[in-house]
């Protein structure tokens, strides 16, 4: 979807149409832009940019805090439309999807015609514009859709993937991040075309097993299908303090609050976690993290919060202000309960307590009930 959050806002509030709309956190605080309408992009505003900068670049912009509920509703409608075309839809994010249309020609015609029909359906029924890339693999399709933006459609014919990719800088390829691109540049490789000309042995020496795979990817030869079942690998929450924090107990309370929120989400998805990681960023941007692995997968606040607190104590070795804290849970599995040998009764109580809290919060919101220590 094109400038999704901003476009949804413009859709619901016609007076905003044609105006630069910027969705993100508090523009006077430290949050970042989550979406900018195309009118705002003219001023150089783009997502992930600090809101304060966006305000400087585009003082006349309409700054909105974002409404996750509304975006979620529109997103569900959008996915509903996609599923009318094919059942093979991979949800990549709230406004991004991969569709496998193999075998759908009989119903909707060739992929290009089908892409056209999808764009039309989204425009007519949602009033939003979507960009689509059509190609023989996930990664090429993604790149094509990015190049098609805004409101465009780009087809890479089968067999022409390498030609299409060749002039593009290596960073365009999903999976080639900062580190890989830096190393590629070190080898004198700037474009995906350069990468296809490289020797496998050299690539293997620099990148290991991943090397030859990279080259295949650059040539558009890996026909990666959909990740039909892409189980979640981790979930987490982090927060940047409005002002750097020196008060350690207060930081601990924030961490406990984040943990409660993540744990609630964990339980809502019916999952349990083996590993918990705490992240700290100091005022000078030094970032440190530390993880703890439990003997079995856990999902209660009362087990995870003390572990988070211990990790925080072990991690926090400096006397500088703390800018950001985060908690994440990983090695997730479906919540299978491993009963405890020594305190099964306590375990049952904790479980009931968490279930009760979750029910109250589902109905009355997160702040309706909480642990008393947070009042301090």
């Amino acid at each position, binding site marked *: 979807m094109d400038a999704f959050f901003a476009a949804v806002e413009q859709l619901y509030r016609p007076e905003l149409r044609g105006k630069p709309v910027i969705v993100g956190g508090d523009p006077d605080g430290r949050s970042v832009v989550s979406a900018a309408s195309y009118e705002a992009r003219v001023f150089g505003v783009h997502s992930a940019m600090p809101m304060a900068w966006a305000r400087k670049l585009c003082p006349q912009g309409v700054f909105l805090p974002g409404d996750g509920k509304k975006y979620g509703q529109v997103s569900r409608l959008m996915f509903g439309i996609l599923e009318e075309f094919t059942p093979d839809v991979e949800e990549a994010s709230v406004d991004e999807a991969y569709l496998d249309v193999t075998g759908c020609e009989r119903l909707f015609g060739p992929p290009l015609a089908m892409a056209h029909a999808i764009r039309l359906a989204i425009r007519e029924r949602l009033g939003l514009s979507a960009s689509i890339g059509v190609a023989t693999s996930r990664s090429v399709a993604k790149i094509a859709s990015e190049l098609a933006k805004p409101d465009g459609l780009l087809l890479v014919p089968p067999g022409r993937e390498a030609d299409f990719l060749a002039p593009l800088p290596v960073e365009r390829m999903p999976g080639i991040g900062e580190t890989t691109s830096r190393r590629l540049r070190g080898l004198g490789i700037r474009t995906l075309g350069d990468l296809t000309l490289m020797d496998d042995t050299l690539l293997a020496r620099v990148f290991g097993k991943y090397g030859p795979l990279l080259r295949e990817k650059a040539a558009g030869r890996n026909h990666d299908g959909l990740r039909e*079942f892409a*189980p979640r690998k981790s979930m987490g929450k982090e927060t940047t303090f409005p002002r750097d924090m020196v008060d350690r107990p207060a930081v601990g309370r924030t961490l406990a609050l984040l943990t409660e929120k993540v744990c609630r989400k964990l339980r809502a998805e019916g999952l*349990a976690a*083996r590993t918990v990681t705490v992240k700290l960023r100091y005022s000078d941007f030094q970032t440190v993290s530390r993880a*703890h*692995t*439990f*003997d*079995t*997968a856990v999902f209660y606040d009362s087990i995870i919060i003390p*572990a988070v607190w*211990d990790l925080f104590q072990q991690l926090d070795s400096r006397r500088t202000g703390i800018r950001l804290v985060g908690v994440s849970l990983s*090695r*997730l*599995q*479906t*919540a*299978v*309960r*491993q*009963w*405890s*040998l*020594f305190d*099964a009764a306590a375990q049952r109580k904790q479980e009931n307590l968490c279930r009760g809290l979750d029910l109250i919060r589902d109905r009355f919101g997160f702040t309706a009930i909480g642990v008393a220590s947070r009042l301090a």
Partner: protein
Amino acid sequence: MKIKVSRSELLHELSQITPVVEKSTKLPILSHILIDANRDDETISLAGSDLDVSIKTSCPANIEEKGAIAIPARELTDLVRYLPEDSDIEICTEDSERVFIISGKSKSRMVCLPDETFPEIPAIGGEDITIPGDILRKMIQMTIFSVTQEQSRFTLNGILLILNRNFIKMVSTDGHRMAYVEATKEFENLEKDLKILIPKKTVAELYKILQADQYLFVQFANDENHLFFKMENRLLVSRLLAGQFPNYELVIPRNLKNKLIFTTQKLKQSVNRVNVLADEISKRIMFKITSGQMLLRTENIKKGEAEMEIEIDYSGADVSLGFNSQYLLEFLNVVESEEVIFEFSDNEAPGLFRPHGELDYVYKYVIMPMSI
């Protein structure tokens, strides 16, 4: 210092010590092995330590000049390993921080640390008790796997050793399962009952030593701060863990309603087979027990399902129990009897596994079930 030692004898001793030596170099001296040639009995002593666990051993040597030095452990062991099998090695110091290691045509000079910087390894203290080596080894083997992997759970982080005039017991747990073994043995010179938590790392090192060589006896002693295990020329010294081990007696279930008997190998093979498709993280295997038959079943949303039927002598109510396959296999891998007894009551109560038949020890393994 100037000594001559046999390559194979030195390597054997070094390989006992290197596992305890620190890999990280927070304290550089801890990555070294102390060689001390100040004794008069034609042996040198070798020692390594990470401050929690220390190993001291000895090796016959031809001492031409007394002295001592701390040599980098990994480099020394590797160097000795790559020398010809039946060669002799000459080790002589150049000064307090350099040593020559000469064998045949190979000559190396290594940068070392002076011996006085090496931490002192406490001498064996207290009355010692003699424990047969094979009993100790077997008891560790039967309990070591259920020690917790979580560093922070310090009261569980080891094996509980209980000695009394008439028996020796070991217990370990990670909070979800527990292994308990008890052997009858007279300890006449034991003055009062002993109940000590042996740290996990110490147990692991002790087990390695007991596996590498056969020892008739292990002499065990303790003082306020340390545990000592002496096996012939080898001494293992460990720091004592503080902390209250949970009340294990309370969680050993008694009077469980139902009882099944399995052929150990058959149960193990069945578990192994269905385990291939168990969920990677939860590792859950369902035991669906019905009259005359037990069905082992695993499910993995990504990979599929597996089932295995076992005939059983059972006529009670249907029960469905979930267990962590790793917990089951770790027990089935070490239990010695041909048959095992499995006792259970319901899907939230502990299950009890134990060997079936006449044995000269008691072995119990308690596992808490898993549920959705």
